């Protein structure tokens, strides 16, 4: 196990393709451009927060492996 910086990484094609499609939707007003700030579950390094019903939850980092 070492800290090893990655080299020659290229943005995946899926991200390029979908980002372009989402941008097209955004310019037609079909998406919510400003998700609301939400409260997150405490207790894990990587946690989830829901913005809208449809929303994919965000990766955020708060709290730690703790009592729960």
């Amino acid at each position, binding site marked *: 196990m070492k800290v090893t910086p990655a080299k020659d990484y290229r943005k995946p094609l899926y991200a390029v393709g979908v980002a372009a499609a989402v941008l097209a939707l955004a310019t037609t007003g079909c998406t919510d451009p400003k998700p609301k700030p939400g*409260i997150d*579950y405490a207790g894990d390094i*990587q946690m989830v927060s829901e913005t809208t019903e449809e929303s994919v939850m965000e*990766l955020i980092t708060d*709290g730690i492996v703790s009592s*729960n």
Partner: protein
Amino acid sequence: MNLTLHLTDNCNLDCSYCIREKCPKDMSEEVLLKACDLAFAQGIQAGLCFFGGEPLLKKDLIYKALDYCEKKSAETGIRFESKMTTNGTLLDEEFLERARDAKMGIGLSFDGKAQDICRVFANGSPTSAVVEEKAKLLLKYLPDSVALATIAPQAVPYYFESIKYLHDLGFRKVSFVIAYGHKVNWTDEDLDLLRTELEKTAEYLKELFIKNERFYMSAINAKISDCIKGKNNAERCHLGVRQMPVTPDGSLYPCTSFIGDKAYLLGDVFNGINNEKVIEMAKRAATPETCLECDLVKRCTNSCGCANRMNTGDENKVSPLQCTYERMLIEISDNLGEELYQIDPVRFAKFYS
């Protein structure tokens, strides 16, 4: 603003990876209400996450906070949102009815098939049978609840099995994180096995995608959707600005692993937040030097001061464990993303963006 309320330092479980000292220190009603006021005093919404110890040992305080904040929200027009992270053993119908009324989000700490390896009652007896029943009850009332699993090295062989088990139980959202801190000892072999388990998980997510079934597995889904959105909430450490913990005595700290370290005390619920100290802390947070030249620097959790401090003792120094895990997770997530995008780009965009 958002606050994590440590309602008590006490817990009825004795999980092997827990780094908190258990002690019979409970939050007083006075501290609780002051904390609620603070949540409403700043920002456009008030958020509380009930936490502990085990928060359900203090159900009375949760009911009080909900009544108080709902009233305050009606008076001020400020939106109020609540969540709770619980071990689930003390859930009951009365509480779940109140939680449903309050639209509370509940995160159930449940390690799935590995539950009894690390998560036992204070007397050492297993918790899996009890928590499985409570999980079913929880999902009956709040079907959007999230299962939060913490994977210690001993639990790695059960990683994929646990995801499947939790999904079969009815969870549509699961969060799997690896255990950090001085109580766990990861080896290269553990991480090799973890890779295999993550690959099995990705294969399972692909099967569900083909069946047009939505299932949210935080670690992988978030890496894919953040990549699409070109954002990463973990890119910058949010020490003290995103969700401050409040200890039972009302002290405010930047994040859970800093609790008790006076150098990081950011104020208290009676006198408010020391904003100068918050700014000073934010300025100190930096991308770890080892990561500056890495192509994944914007997709990785390298800047999490909390994880860094737990693993290396320095909030700005990332650990080999975290680096290895992040690289593996990004690679597996991207491979899955490419596959799903090829299978059905429209469905993929709908599921992941």
